[in-house]
């Protein structure tokens, strides 16, 4: 059984230009001990989906949908309360690691406080656990780092700290929202390796959000591709890389430099993403889709199991090659 699943999540925001329908019927499941990648461009709704799980949407958002966690099933609106009551052990890390750390307190104290004030441990015990945690996220001289301040360390180091901070609460799910986008490529590789190691060692599940399709298909176990607030394709990452079936997934791959011979023209998706201003009644990608059928403009394609084990929301996907 899945560790957690989201069912039919819908999120709307009021804005100056009318209502923004940021998430329109997203259903996703995360298994225990897996790394699920969520990939999409701006406006895809990937961040909003995960923020709603953590109750970070803000008062103006209107969200509906259900979350199944373990045996409990709650409405999306109850996620904040659930999390505060300690019954939804999930943690989240963000793109800007330094911004998420208190600049006037030591890094060690920000981890230790979870142990002392969150779990009621003694100061000495908390210190010991903090040092352990710092070691497990690959920091080589944890004693020194205890008294360090965020501005004294590099971006990669700070991201390790935020991972440690997130793990202090012993979550079962870690949501990482573009954690490596602001980091150098070599540091990105280290952080991804660290996450993989943590998953292998502790069985924590990870949701990894990124805009980089190459990265998620190489690093994650399963990948969900989102467009205009909906999941358009989800499946095993290797299979998805070899045979993307949704026209958007395929176009996205073809747009990345390197999938075509050098100096050739990359795939250009005509038009621009349009974020829904009303409840969607058709496929969000239809206006730009080269495989568009009449049906696509009047009906929302449901996310259904495909022939090869993944799920697909398309009326005219690419066929599976033999």
């Amino acid at each position: 059984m899945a560790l957690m699943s989201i069912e039919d999540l819908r999120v709307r925001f009021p804005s100056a230009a009318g209502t923004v329908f940021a998430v329109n019927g997203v259903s996703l499941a995360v298994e225990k001990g897996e790394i699920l990648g969520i990939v999409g461009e701006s406006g895809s709704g990937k961040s909003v989906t995960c923020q709603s799980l953590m109750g970070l949407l803000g008062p103006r958002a209107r969200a509906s949908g259900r979350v199944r966690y373990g045996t409990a099933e709650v409405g999306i609106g109850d996620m904040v309360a659930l999390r505060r009551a300690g019954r939804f052990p999930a943690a989240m890390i963000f793109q800007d690691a330094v911004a998420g750390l208190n600049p006037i307190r030591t890094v060690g104290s920000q981890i230790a406080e979870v142990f002392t004030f969150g779990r009621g441990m003694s100061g000495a015990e908390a210190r010991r656990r903090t040092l352990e945690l710092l070691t497990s996220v690959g920091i080589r001289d944890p004693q020194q780092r205890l008294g360090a301040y965020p501005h004294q360390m590099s971006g990669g180091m700070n991201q390790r700290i935020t991972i440690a901070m997130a793990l202090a609460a012993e979550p079962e799910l870690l949501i990482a929202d573009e954690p490596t986008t602001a980091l150098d490529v070599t540091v990105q590789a280290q952080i991804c390796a660290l996450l993989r190691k943590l998953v292998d060692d502790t069985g924590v599940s990870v949701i990894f959000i990124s805009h980089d399709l190459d990265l998620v298909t190489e690093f994650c176990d399963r990948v969900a591709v989102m467009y205009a607030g909906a999941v358009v394709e989800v499946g095993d990452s290797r299979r998805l890389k070899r045979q993307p079936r949704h026209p958007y997934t395929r176009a996205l791959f073809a747009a990345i430099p390197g999938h075509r011979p050098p100096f050739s023209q990359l795939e250009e998706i005509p038009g621009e993403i349009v974020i829904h201003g009303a409840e969607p009644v058709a496929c969000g990608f239809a206006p730009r889709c080269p495989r568009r059928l009449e049906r696509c403009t009047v009906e929302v394609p449901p996310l259904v199991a495909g022939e090869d084990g993944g799920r697909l929301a398309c009326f005219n996907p690419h066929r599976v090659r033999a």
Partner: protein
Amino acid sequence: MARNIAIAVLRMAVTVFLAVTFVFVIMRVSGDPIRALLPLDAPEELVEATRIEWGLDQPLHVQFFAYVGHLLQGDFGRSLNDSRSALAIVLEKVPATLLLMSSGLLLSLIVGTSLGVLAASHRGAFLDRLVMTNAVLVHSIPSFLLGIVLILIFAVWLGVLPSGGGPSLGHLILPAAVIGLSHAGVVARFVRSSTLEVLAQPYIKVAGLKPLPRWYMLAAHVLPGTALPLLTLIGFSLGAMIGGAAIVESIFAWPGVGRFLVSAVARRDVAVVQTIVILVALMMAAANLLTDLLYVLFDPRLRGRRPA
């Protein structure tokens, strides 16, 4: 670091020097101290003799150099009133003023910070607007008016507090209240916006995801963020209060430096006025320097680069 302190101290000295020079000139140019000292019908020879006795017949620049020379030896001059050492007289009155100002400051901080945090946590709600409007209102009332009103209410109508005098605790209540309440508005507005700024920070959002109790969040993450800017406000507040001290002390007949300054100016007691000015300038400059030092001490980002 040491160089910065040295520069700051130098700047302080220059400020004090400029203040003293200014007062020195103004006091002698704006009126005749000797005529103010002696009775109106005093004979000319007595006036002249007194003037020579006090050295006030000399040209201005000669007087000035003599004065500076004495200052550097620790001689602040004598009061025209009773020929006692100006410094001694002024220093006698300093504790009373310190008591009043620190009580006022403390009151304004307690009331202002509570109201500010309250307003920030109910941002946009009726409570927020109520607190803020009142803050502006009370601050707009001139302190002497507020003082008189409070005297009327508590000393005259209710008769529970003395209307003036001191420096006992009972006499302290009303004047401290005037200073404190008047300034609380400024503190409240400042704390409110400072708190809102801190609450908007990403690290507060991230800390909120940790399983921490709410009181701890406030005490360990929100308040420390507002404490630093509050330091600069305190530095500024001291300056504002010194200015207002003269008025409040006069209204309540509180035996402090402010009230003494008012009477000394009226009497053209030059040495006393100059001494008070020096003291006040030194105090304000020292307050600013202290604020800067504390800021560096408490904000790790300002302590200079250390290797990662």
